């Protein structure tokens, strides 16, 4: 390994510009003649728009135009995935216009678009728009949305049901339950979360009258996908006339995957007004309009034999979609959730039912982990409860049911085939690193200090590296999910890498540069990674689902294979040797058994200055593009162990130790991998202990609409993490990478909650819901079957 090669913790190339304030974010972009947009939003969760009077706003100082739903003459925002219900009927897919036509369906829904010379003028004018609403009752509750007699969000969605879907073998599952020795049951809520990327969403629309070309600068994780969705489905702009640029993006966590109304509105209005238009969300708008995450209500049952061997699992989940279908919302609680319910266990029969419901709330879509944290939380809470009920050790019940390292490839009863893994190895690593064996003495020591100490474990798997196009296509995806990579070798031997993935915190500019510099044997300083512009990169599906290295990196490797193959032919010509005899290593081409050699740079120069060149057989130039469509998902997994100390006086939970041992496949940059795990675990801690998106059940107002009430994790909420990787290689991509972006957020919440329950278990407490706030923990202690002994 070299100092900058694969496996080295190279400092991030992109950090100079970020840490010195030299990044270029969407809001930093200003176009000549730019105007500013403000969007008037619904104050009601559910109301008819009776009348909108914009006359006063139209004549307000600085106003260029005011548009309402009646003015908007283009298409609605599409859903990118179609789910079919049990009975074969397609999901209910309501229209989703960027400006509401006749009804608002959540607080924050778009009612009018005001364009003015300045943002303040647009906002002032919006106050002069007179909207007459007829308020309607709203449905907010996930659990109640499908009950008869509730307010209806869409006339076509009876009882607010979008789809009623299932997966697995119901008969086999019922049969296994019939002969079970014991059945453990659990009811769980996986609460709604607000993503809260540090950079709010923003969009700048521009239209060039000279060429008829549109440009959208936007805070996106996948600019090509936005170009496809907005161009083809919403605004009917052909791809060759539409450029989408996602420059530096300050965090996404899933929330910037989706195509949003504001992107379409600024692009559409720029075309009408022949003015560039900028819109940037205020933080309170982010709370009201960024797609939110999770929001499941589930019941699950686990059937076991007398030895605690899992026989069958059945799960029933209601998943909240919000008021509309966001881009990938339908697939999150289905193919990213129920397919993961085997976990790391050999459960032979699984049956899952998922009902997706509409409510008068902000849309819900993928958020770091997307479906897999929900599956993992359900399984790992259930397994812990099963261990308690069976009076078995929590570790042993897991070991007993693990898929063994010899069993791969392993076909689960819920559609996935795991390619590799070693769950005993990650478990052993985490038990050792966390000193699991020594815990009881720490519990006793804490007890002497009046504290309740607990330890919790989660052994998890996830599916990422999204995704084999044929597979997802058969499951309802309306897009392929391959990736594209291009390698442009410049005449002097430096290289620009073009990737269809997008880096918004992941460090691709470093990781991909390491991959390329190591493979081509050139300095990492000679490699530049370019992403985020549909005019530069041939195509791409973007970054989400921990896919960038496994899928995007593999496309880069394939493109490098083509580069090396062509370069070998050039080198063979220069060395007057047979191509079959040319070897390439450490940046040099050699001929086996001779002392002939040509460096990579000479070959590059020859490709562009082809004076001595096999011109009849080979084109000049050295640039190659590859598309890589994965053969399977990748399956990172591992073990997270959390140790907490509860203060019974206040209910405060302090995480005193957190250990993550993850199998993420091949690691290119260990520092970046650690950072990804840190960030993911921080978000997992956020979900487990701090974060909850709460709406008023009657009015539908977002009660946690600012950071004053919505509690994001902060540095002083977090412990020092013990993070390690214990990898098996992915068997089907050329890197062996599995992905790491989401593992922290997937594996950690159940480990934390299991630890809190373990801490409270001496008092007889069996359940606590997320987030385990001080109030909830204190209340659990107050109402516990057993009281704390007097100090």
């Amino acid at each position: 390994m070299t100092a900058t090669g694969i496996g080295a913790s190279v400092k991030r190339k992109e950090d100079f510009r970020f840490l010195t304030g030299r990044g270029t974010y969407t809001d930093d972009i200003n176009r000549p003649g730019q105007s500013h947009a403000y969007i008037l939003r619904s104050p009601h969760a559910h109301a008819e728009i009776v009348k909108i009077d914009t006359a006063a706003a139209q004549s307000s100082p600085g106003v260029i135009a005011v548009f309402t739903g009646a003015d908007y003459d283009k298409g609605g925002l599409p859903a990118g995935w179609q789910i079919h219900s049990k009975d074969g009927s397609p999901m209910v897919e309501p229209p989703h216009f960027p400006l509401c036509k006749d009804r608002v369906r959540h607080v924050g829904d778009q009612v009018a678009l005001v364009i003015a010379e300045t943002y303040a003028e647009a906002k002032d004018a919006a106050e002069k728009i007179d909207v007459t609403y007829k308020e309607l009752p709203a449905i907010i509750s996930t659990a109640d949305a499908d009950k008869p007699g509730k307010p209806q969000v869409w006339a076509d969605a009876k009882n607010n049901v979008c789809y009623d879907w299932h997966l697995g073998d119901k008969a086999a599952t019922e049969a296994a339950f019939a002969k079970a020795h014991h059945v453990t049951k659990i009811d769980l809520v996986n609460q709604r979360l607000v993503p809260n990327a540090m950079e709010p969403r923003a969009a700048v629309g521009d239209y060039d009258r000279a060429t008829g070309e549109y440009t959208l600068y936007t805070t996106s994780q996948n600019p090509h996908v936005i170009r496809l969705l907005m161009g083809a489905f919403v605004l009917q702009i052909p791809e060759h006339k539409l450029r989408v640029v996602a420059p530096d993006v300050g965090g996404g966590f899933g929330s910037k995957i989706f195509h949003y109304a504001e992107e379409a509105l600024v692009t559409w209005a720029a075309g009408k007004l022949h003015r560039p238009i900028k819109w940037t969300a205020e933080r309170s708008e982010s709370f009201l309009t960024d797609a939110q995450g999770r929001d499941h209500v589930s019941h699950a049952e686990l059937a076991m034999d007398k030895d605690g061997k899992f026989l069958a699992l059945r799960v029933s989940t209601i998943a909240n979609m919000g008021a509309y279908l966001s881009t990938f919302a339908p697939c999150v609680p289905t193919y990213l959730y129920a397919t993961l319910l085997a976990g790391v266990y050999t459960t032979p029969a699984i049956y899952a039912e998922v009902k997706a419901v509409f409510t008068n709330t902000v849309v819900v879509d993928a958020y770091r982990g997307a479906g897999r944290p929900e599956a993992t939380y359900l399984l790992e809470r259930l397994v812990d409860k099963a261990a308690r009920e069976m009076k078995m050790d929590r570790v042993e019940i897991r070991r007993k049911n693990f898929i063994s390292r010899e069993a791969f490839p392993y076909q689960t009863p819920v559609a996935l085939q795991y390619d590799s893994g070693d769950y005993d190895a990650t478990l052993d690593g985490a038990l050792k690193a966390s000193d699991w064996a020594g815990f009881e003495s720490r519990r006793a020591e804490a007890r002497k200090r009046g504290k309740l100490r607990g330890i919790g474990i989660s052994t998890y798997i996830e599916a990422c590296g999204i995704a084999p196009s044929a597979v997802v296509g058969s499951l309802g995806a309306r897009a392929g999910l391959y990736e594209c990579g291009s390698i442009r070798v410049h005449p002097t031997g430096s290289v620009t890498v073009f990737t269809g993935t997008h880096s918004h915190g992941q460090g691709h500019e470093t990781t991909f540069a390491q991959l390329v510099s190591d493979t081509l044997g050139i300095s990492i300083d000679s490699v530049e990674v370019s992403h985020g512009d549909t005019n530069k990169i041939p195509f791409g599906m973007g970054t989400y689902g921990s896919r960038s290295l496994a899928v995007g990196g593999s496309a880069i490797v394939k493109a490098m294979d083509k580069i090396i193959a062509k370069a070998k032919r050039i080198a063979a010509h220069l060395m007057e040797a047979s191509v079959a005899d040319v070897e390439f290593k450490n940046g040099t081409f050699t001929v086996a058994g001779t002392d002939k050699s040509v460096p990579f740079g000479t070959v590059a120069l020859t490709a562009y200055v082809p004076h001595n060149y096999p011109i009849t057989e080979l084109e000049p130039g050295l640039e190659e593009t590859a598309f890589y469509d994965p053969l399977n998902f990748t399956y990172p997994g591992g073990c997270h162990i959390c140790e907490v100390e509860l203060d019974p006086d206040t209910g405060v939970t302090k995480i005193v130790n957190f250990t993550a041992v993850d199998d993420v496949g091949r690691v290119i940059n260990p520092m970046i991998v650690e950072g990804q795990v840190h960030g993911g675990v921080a978000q997992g801690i956020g979900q487990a202990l701090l974060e909850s998106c709460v709406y008023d059940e009657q009015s539908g107002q977002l009660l946690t609409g600012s950071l004053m009430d919505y509690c994001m994790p902060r540095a002083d909420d977090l412990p020092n993490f013990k993070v390690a990787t214990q990898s098996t290689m992915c068997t089907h991509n050329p890197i062996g990478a599995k992905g790491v972006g989401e593992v922290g957020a997937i594996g950690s919440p159940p480990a934390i909650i299991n630890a809190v329950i373990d801490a409270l278990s001496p008092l007889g407490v069996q359940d606590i819901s997320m987030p385990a706030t001080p109030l909830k923990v204190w209340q659990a202690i107050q109402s516990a079957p057993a009281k704390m002994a007097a100090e």
Partner: protein
Amino acid sequence: MHDFGYHRPASVADVAGLLASKGEAKVVAGGMTLIPTLKQRLASPSDLVDLAGIAELKGVKAEGGGITIGAMTTHAEVHRSAEVQKTIPALAQLAGGIGDPQVRNRGTIGGSVANSDPAADYPAAVLGLGATIRTNKREIKADDFFKGMFETALQDGEIITAIHFPKPEKAGYSKFPNPASRYAIVGVFVARTAGGVRAAVTGAGPCAFRSKELESALGGSFTPEAAKAVKLGADGFNTDLHATAAYRAHLISVMAARAVAAAS
């Protein structure tokens, strides 16, 4: 925010004139509450009268054995003040725990006390220490100052110029912060003074208040155990997303005990 006129007078005397001449004028000190309110367009004053240019409102000085803190003294200045640390360390500690560094470098003691936010820290110290609030018109005893949620004894055109804190024998402050905002869900300031024990609570009611139950218990025995043994009913305490009234009632005893334990 909406447009407004901006004035930066150089003396307290000029403030009153500006406030009288401008219809909907508001005074801005550190602006930690007012500026976000303006940005959210929840307030639309015609004019802002900024006290930041008035030198006489700034600084900490020893006075009569206690300390006097100018209204425009920032939390960070109080926290770092050697005079405060020496005379009333609990007050310096309290100031250092308000908000975050940005807030502590902008927010002022006068602004906080005049605002009477139900979850602000300073009102607990003002009441707990039996401070005197000095205004451009008069002196007001702490016990007469806090009237309700965002309500004080201040009249129109009256601004705080300084707050005088007598030196206690011992004092301590402990707060249970809201996990999101870090405002006090409950904060308790206890002081043993020549005139007896004072215990003031913030975060739990409409405004900071003295707890007779705590004062009585701590008057008998100024110990954490005595504080913890006080069991308050939940009636009258705030309930919100983060804490019920019963939880707040419980936390008052716990925070009081911690304040006593930390008292110096």
